[in-house]
């Protein structure tokens, strides 16, 4: 095909163009023509198609997401908010921390290893782009039924991909989730979170300022992988009989990324860049248009200078390629020599591809001919915005009316069977088979990782300052009531930070949903955002950024609404954290928080084929009082251990606690069956020295406190039920080995 230039586009206005194949609707195509005053060139069409895709433009979600700004609390901790590559918060002592979670769901279904690997790579580059050293990753994952044949294809590949990439980057994996549900069969969720740390003065932004400054592309060469990934893969529903979409999945090289990280950090340390942007979804189209929009002027790029892995790539393909491990920097001419020198030291390919101009256009040439001439903001930020129709789906009224009353174990034998069944069920079973494939030790600062309630890393070895991160979603509750579900996930993630004694500081999110073209899904989404924005406002936590993943549906079946909420907390001295379990006998165990008898959305109900009922109503005031108590429990040294109650309720938490250090417990419960199984939010089990029980009671104030029993022995005893730790451990730890070993 002949090169399509701006001149050609002006002279041949009626040439038919494949906008629909590129994922653009006809009115979107018409709008591009209106912006440009002519038809787009094929290169411009390529850029608009990827940048106006759902994945990049947030066109269906934007109208809702602005609530995070409208309802935002004024937080002095927020240094960089939504809109940049990742939000940045002040954690004290001159340190700033950036964190973000993103989805790589669709590629991971097509090609589990590479999809998951490049998901990690992408989020790590987002964090690096802010000027931060990446210090940890986490990965909330969701799959179809554990025993489904396709889960056996997808899960091992995803785990190996997360590990293969993250381990090779030298980033400790400090937690995540592994959840199974039928609705994720065909639509697995692979979310990846990264945390980075820097000094306040080192924060970098994506802007191309200063006419005459150079546009520098460095990192891997550009190849033909991932072309159209965001528009084709992430923005369309999978059809059961569709063609293989493998070429749209990127292929990662973690070694190149590791070198790129070290090289970039050295460049940042010498203050050699004016602005910086990583190349992720939509590749160069995104990086050039976002950098140019972020600055005050325009930009000229000579596309033929881009180093290629495949010399046959057309300019359109180069603009759309999502080849991994690439960064784009804006560098003052006086600093370019040193920049090139550092790249040479690290053997990183580096090319000056253009310069910042004092105009207001993004102009891209191919061997001297102009192939792109656009106002950059129209590509990067002024894409279409849809107020999609939304309507409460019919299922809500139906399932909310259902009475959820699964059989409750009564006899000692029934209770024992229930505890062992819950310990072994895939959603609650020990996840070591997964987490043992991840390096949790590298960098030498990991204080907590799986199976702790949150991941915790030290960020200063002298002052012992640290941060904690937890991610949570309860899709069962979100399915029943997306508004409350979002608040409950926020509460749970915050509680998971606080059990260790850290103080919740900021929120990120990854909102995984079905097709936005379905009014019912759109309603779930709108309710979720409303719930999360209201919840954050009430708890005084800023939302620092996030990610939306739509089209997680095969045919007419959407996934459960799955808002993954990430909370970052700060702890002034990691040495004083409260561990999740006890390592000795003779301690007293208490349940903090009131329990009810609502089993809706619980794992026990799910195991009995019931997924209806009413989700709990989040009581965030109560949650905040609980968080205060948990922090106080650490700072005043009241607790020996504290562990959150969530999926699987008391039985799951007790199982995890006694197995952690192999110290049993003797518990007495008035109504053991229901008490072990309900998942009432806002509850925590704590272990205290007997001498500190009075302090606990005083600190708890009007928060309900129930004495459970004492620690010790080599079994878990509940009333007249006794389960040896060996039997409990076998049940808890053999599930994954049996399924995937």
């Amino acid at each position: 095909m002949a090169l399509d230039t701006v001149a050609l586009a002006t002279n041949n206005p009626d040439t038919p163009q494949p906008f629909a194949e590129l994922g653009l609707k006809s009115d979107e195509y018409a709008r591009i023509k209106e912006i440009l005053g002519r038809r787009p060139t094929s290169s411009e069409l390529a850029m608009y198609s990827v940048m106006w895709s759902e994945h990049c433009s947030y066109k269906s979600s934007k109208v809702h997401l602005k609530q995070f700004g409208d309802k935002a609390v004024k937080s002095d901790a927020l240094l960089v908010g939504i809109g940049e590559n990742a939000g940045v918060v002040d954690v004290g002592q001159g340190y700033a921390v950036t964190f973000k979670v993103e989805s790589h769901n669709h590629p991971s279904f097509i090609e589990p290893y590479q999809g998951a690997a490049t998901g990690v790579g992408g989020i790590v580059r987002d964090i690096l782009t802010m000027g931060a050293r990446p210090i940890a990753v986490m990965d909330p994952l969701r799959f179809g039924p554990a025993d489904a044949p396709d889960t056996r294809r997808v899960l091992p590949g995803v785990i190996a991909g997360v590990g293969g990439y993250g381990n090779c980057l030298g980033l400790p994996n400090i937690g995540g989730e592994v959840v199974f549900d039928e609705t994720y069969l065909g639509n697995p969720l692979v979310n990846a979170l990264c945390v980075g740390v820097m000094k306040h003065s080192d924060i970098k932004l994506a802007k191309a300022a200063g006419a005459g400054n150079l546009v520098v592309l460095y990192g891997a060469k550009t190849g033909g992988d991932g072309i159209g990934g965001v528009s084709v893969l992430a923005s369309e529903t999978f059809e059961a009989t569709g063609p293989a979409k493998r070429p749209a999945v990127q292929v990662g090289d973690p070694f190149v990324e590791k070198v790129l990280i070290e090289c970039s950090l050295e460049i940042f340390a010498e203050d050699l860049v004016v602005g910086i942007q990583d190349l992720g979804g939509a590749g160069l189209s995104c990086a050039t248009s976002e950098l140019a929009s972020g600055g005050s002027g325009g930009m000229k790029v000579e596309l033929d200078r881009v180093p290629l892995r495949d010399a046959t790539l057309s300019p359109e393909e180069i603009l759309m390629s999502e080849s991994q491990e690439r960064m784009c920097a804006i560098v003052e001419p006086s600093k370019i020599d040193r920049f090139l020198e550092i790249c040479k030291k690290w053997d990183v390919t580096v090319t000056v591809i253009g310069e910042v101009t004092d105009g207001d256009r993004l102009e891209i040439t191919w061997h001297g001919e102009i192939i792109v001439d656009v106002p950059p903001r129209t590509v990067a930020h002024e894409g279409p915005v849809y107020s999609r129709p939304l309507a409460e789906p019919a299922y809500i009224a139906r399932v909310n009316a259902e009475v959820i009353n699964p059989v409750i174990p009564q006899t000692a034998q029934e209770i024992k069977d229930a505890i062992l069944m819950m310990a072994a069920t895939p959603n609650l079973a020990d996840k070591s088979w997964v987490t043992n494939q991840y390096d949790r030790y590298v960098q030498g600062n990991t204080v907590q990782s799986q199976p702790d309630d949150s991941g915790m890393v030290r960020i200063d070895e002298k002052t012992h300052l640290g941060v904690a991160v937890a991610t949570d979603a309860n899709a069962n509750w979100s399915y029943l009531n997306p508004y409350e579900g979002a608040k409950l996930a926020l509460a749970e993630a915050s509680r998971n930070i606080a059990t260790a004694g850290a103080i919740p500081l900021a929120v990120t999110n990854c909102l995984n949903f079905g097709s936005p073209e379905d009014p019912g899904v759109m309603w779930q989404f709108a309710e979720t955002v409303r719930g999360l924005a209201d919840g954050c406002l009430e708890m005084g936590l800023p939302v620092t950024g996030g990610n939306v993943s739509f089209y997680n549906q095969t045919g007419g079946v959407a996934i459960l609404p799955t808002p993954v909420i990430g909370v970052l907390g700060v702890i002034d001295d990691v040495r004083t954290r409260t561990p999740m379990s006890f390592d000795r006998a003779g301690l007293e165990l208490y349940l903090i928080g009131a329990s009810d008898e609502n089993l809706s959305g619980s794992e026990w109900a799910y195991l009995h084929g019931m997924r209806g009922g009413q989700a709990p109503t989040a009581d965030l005031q109560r949650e905040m009082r609980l968080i205060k108590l948990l922090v106080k429990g650490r700072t005043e040294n009241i607790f020996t251990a504290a562990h959150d109650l969530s999926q699987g309720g008391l039985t799951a938490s007790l199982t995890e606690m006694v197995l952690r250090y192999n110290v049993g417990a003797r518990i007495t419960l008035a109504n053991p069956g229901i008490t072990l199984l309900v998942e009432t939010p806002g509850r925590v089990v704590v272990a205290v020295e007997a001498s500190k029980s009075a302090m606990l009671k005083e600190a708890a104030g009007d928060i309900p406190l129930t004495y459970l029993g004492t620690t010790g022995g080599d079994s878990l005893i509940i009333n007249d039920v006794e389960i040896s730790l060996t039997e409990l451990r076998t049940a808890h730890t053999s599930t994954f080995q049996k399924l995937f070993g």
Partner: protein
Amino acid sequence: MKVGVITFPGTLDDRDALRAASVAGTTAISLWHDEADLKGVDAVILPGGFSYGDYLRCGAISRFAPVMTKVIDAANGGMPLLGICNGFQVLCEAHLLPGALTRNKDLHFLCRDQKLVIENNSTAWTSDYTKGQEILIPLKNGEGSFQCDDHTLAQLESEGRIVARYVGENPNGSRNLIAGITNERGNIVGLMPHPEHAIETLTGPSSDGLGFFTSVLKAMVK
């Protein structure tokens, strides 16, 4: 006393090794793969990671790095040299130690707290342990299965050159549960698990790993 820690492209545990060497009381110095200069150090650590992406074979490219010619010369002259994980793989590729590290028997990357027994406490890196002492340190690798021919194995056993063995179930299929070995002279040690990740209980499963670094301090003082 100065301990050098080499950074290759793709090295990951260099800062951890530098930290461990300092905590043990030595002066830790960073060395760069591309400079044939040991900067006057008295001992060298090849840390863990995926040098050169582990492409071709683990450690196969690193052994040709400019700094390695100096390391090999110095080690042949008796300088204490410790290769941890990827560093052990480099030592085998450089023929400073016999054998090879191959894919774990179940083909997964494996990260877990591993019990070892110290079998030889007369090397430059293990004198602070007692013979038969059990220690708990992290094991994390994808290619940690130690393999060698029968003759070499018999020689390693009979000459007491097994420095540490895995206790309990064999984690990766290593012959004779071998976790670490030494050369005849006892100055070069290769170890698959990571003592540098076990120097304090806050961030490691124990502080049992510190002994490797305090041992070399004593060896250098002697």
